[in-house]
């Protein structure tokens, strides 16, 4: 359980010292991609705690979710449908759902 948290810390530190900054126009896509990744990680944690973790599914899910979410928001913007909020809502709901399941798992143990 500690390994992911340590990983997160390392990532935060790397990100802090990397001289990368997003153009403001792309902040929307970045936030959606971030939420999708967050959802994937919580999904992975949940699957791990349920004992049915699949590495391939997790890895592909992480990257495709992030890119597809950002891509869909981009396309939505082009055709005038605000998919941004839809993506936020969907991934946000799933993040909280996964959180609840993980919590239940730890409580039951």
């Amino acid at each position, binding site marked *: 359980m500690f*390994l992911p948290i340590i990983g997160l810390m390392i990532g935060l530190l790397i*990100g802090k010292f990397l001289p990368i900054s997003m153009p403001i126009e792309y902040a929307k896509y970045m936030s959606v991609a971030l939420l999708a990744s967050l959802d994937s990680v919580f999904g992975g944690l949940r699957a791990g705690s349920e004992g049915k973790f699949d590495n391939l599914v997790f890895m592909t899910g992480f990257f495709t979710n992030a890119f597809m979410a950002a891509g869909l928001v981009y396309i939505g913007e082009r055709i005038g449908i605000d998919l941004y909020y839809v993506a936020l809502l969907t991934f946000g709901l799933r993040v909280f759902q996964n959180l609840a399941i993980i919590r239940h798992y730890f409580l039951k143990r």
Partner: protein
Amino acid sequence: MHKQGQFSISVVCIILGIMLAIQFRTTQDIRSSAQYERADDLMKRIMQVEKERTALEDQVHDLRQPPGDDAAAKDLERIKIGAGLVPLQGTGIIITIDNTKQALSPSNKNPNLSQIRDEDILKILNELRAAGAEAIAINNQRLIATSEVRTAGSFISINNKNFATPFEIKAIGDPVALENALKIRGGIIETIQFWGIQVVIKQSTVVELPAFKGTFRFQYAHPDQNGGK
């Protein structure tokens, strides 16, 4: 299996951490970006400029106040009247000219011939001045030494402002002398009436002229130190 899951989740968490850090920075950038603060900034600037403008207007008003000295004040007043900075009233005439209302006759196909042009107005002004007009305004634009009357496209530019027909020329002076000067046989009024331009001349005991509203700026002209000798 469980161990491996932990490992890949950790790897992904590193990436997630990087993304989070970038997102933090981007959000901060947005907060401090020009777009976000633009409206606020512009509002402040508008307020400041408006304040400055009011202060300057007050200053102009204060500076325009005549000084206490009586003789100097009279001198100044005369100079200001001469320069067109004071609204004036007195006897005079009001001339209204407008383009022809009637349809063009077959023999007169060129519409430009029955349009008022700068030359017509300039000739009228010249005639008025020769007849002793003391002050003249066209469409409430007071004519001063640097005023121009010039065709600008379909308009006529007076004091750098564009006017279309009709034109109302007001002149202060001896009404009879002014009107006679204009209506002299073969004079300017007869000429433009021949081309179908409508002219109405009215003598009036109270002609009111506005002050010149522009500003004086002398970029090239400077007072001669030798007194022009």
